[in-house]
C-alpha cells in the first residue's frame, strides 16, 4: 500500500515538492479564465446589476473555507486513529489558508450585503456560523502554537478540528434550517442550478482555482513544517536545498 509510504514526512516532502508547482500553475490559469468569464463575458444580473459579480470571489472562498475545515478534520481523524506524523503537519498547513478564506468570505459578503441588504452585517444564522468558523480556525492556530511539545500540540489541535467540524454542516444548511436573510444555495447537487450557465461557469472556474490554490499553498507550507519538525534528522540535513541555504548563510556570515 503506497498510502502509508507517503504518510512518512520523509517521503511526502519530495512528493509535495513535485505536486505544488503544477497545482499553482493550474490555479493561476483557471483563475484568469474564471475572471475573464465573470468580468468580461457574463452579463449583469437583472436584479443586482453589476454588484452580483462579487459572487465570483465570495462563493469560491466560502466553499473552500468549509472544505478546508473538513480536510483538517479528515487529517485529524487519521492522526488520532493511526498516529501518523504527517496528519498533524497537514492539519497545521491547511489552517492559515482556511482562516484567510473564512475572513474573505465574511469580507466579500459584507461588501455585497451593504448595497443589496442595506447593511454590512446581521446576526443571521449563516453569517454567525461563518464567523464561528473563522474563530475555530483562529482557535486552532492559537492552541497549536501555544503548546510546545509537537505531539501534544498535534493531538490537541486534532480534537479542535474534529469537534469543530460539526459547525460546517450547520453553515451549509443554515439557510434551510433557519429563516435567514442570506439567500439559499445557488448551486446544489440535487437541483439544477438557479443561475445562467455563463455565470455558473465563471463561478465554477473560480472555485476550482481557489481549490487548487489552497492545495498548492498547503503543500508548500507543509514542506516548511516538515523541515522545521525534522530539523535534527539526517535526511533533512542532507537535502540539497538545505546545503545550498547553509552555504549562503556561511557566505553572508563571512562577508
Amino acid at each position, binding site marked *: 500500500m503506497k498510502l502509508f509510504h507517503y504518510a512518512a514526512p520523509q517521503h511526502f516532502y519530495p512528493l509535495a515538492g513535485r505536486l505544488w508547482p503544477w497545482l499553482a500553475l493550474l490555479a493561476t490559469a483557471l483563475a484568469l479564465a474564471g475572471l475573464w468569464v465573470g*468580468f*468580461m*463575458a*457574463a*452579463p*449583469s444580473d437583472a436584479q443586482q*446589476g*453589476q*454588484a452580483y*459579480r*462579487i459572487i465570483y*470571489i*465570495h462563493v469560491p*472562498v466560502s466553499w473552500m473555507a468549509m472544505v478546508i475545515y473538513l480536510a483538517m478534520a479528515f487529517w485529524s481523524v487519521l492522526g488520532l486513529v493511526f498516529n501518523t506524523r504527517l496528519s498533524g503537519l497537514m492539519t497545521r498547513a491547511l489552517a*492559515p*489558508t482556511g482562516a*484567510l478564506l473564512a*475572513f*474573505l468570505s465574511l*469580507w*466579500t459578503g459584507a*461588501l*455585497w450585503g*451593504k*448595497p443589496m441588504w442595506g447593511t454590512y452585517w446581521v446576526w443571521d444564522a449563516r453569517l454567525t456560523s461563518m464567523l464561528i468558523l473563522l474563530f475555530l480556525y483562529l482557535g486552532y492556530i492559537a492552541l497549536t502554537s501555544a503548546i510546545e511539545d509537537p505531539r501534544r500540540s498535534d493531538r490537541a489541535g486534532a480534537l479542535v478540528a474534529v469537534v469543530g467540524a460539526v459547525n460546517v454542516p450547520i453553515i451549509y444548511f443554515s439557510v434551510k434550517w433557519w429563516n435567514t436573510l442570506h439567500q439559499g444555495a445557488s448551486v446544489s447537487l440535487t437541483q439544477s442550478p438557479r443561475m445562467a450557465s455563463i455565470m455558473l461557469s465563471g463561478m465554477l472556474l473560480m472555485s476550482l482555482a481557489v481549490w487548487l*490554490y489552497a492545495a498548492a*499553498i498547503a503543500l*508548500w*507550507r507543509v*514542506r*516548511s*513544517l516538515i*523541515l*522545521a519538525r525534522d*530539523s*535534527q534528522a539526517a535526511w*533533512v*540535513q542532507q537535502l540539497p*536545498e*538545505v546545503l545550498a*541555504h*547553509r552555504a549562503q*548563510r556561511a557566505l553572508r556570515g563571512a562577508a
Partner: protein
Amino acid sequence: MMWQSASEFWAMGGYGVYVWGSMGVSAALLALEVWLARMGRQQALDEVCEAMDASAGEAS
C-alpha cells in the same frame, strides 16, 4: 465583451467600491499569504541550519 469603455468597467454600474473592494482585498491578502509562506520556508531552512550548527558545536 459587455463593456463600452474602461471607465464603465471600473464603475461597475455604481457598485465599483463594493466589487473592487472585494476583489482587491482578496487579491492583496492572497498575495500576502504567498509572501508569508515564502518567508516561512526561509525560516524553516534557517532552523535546520541552526540545528546543524548546534550539533557541529557539540561534536567538536
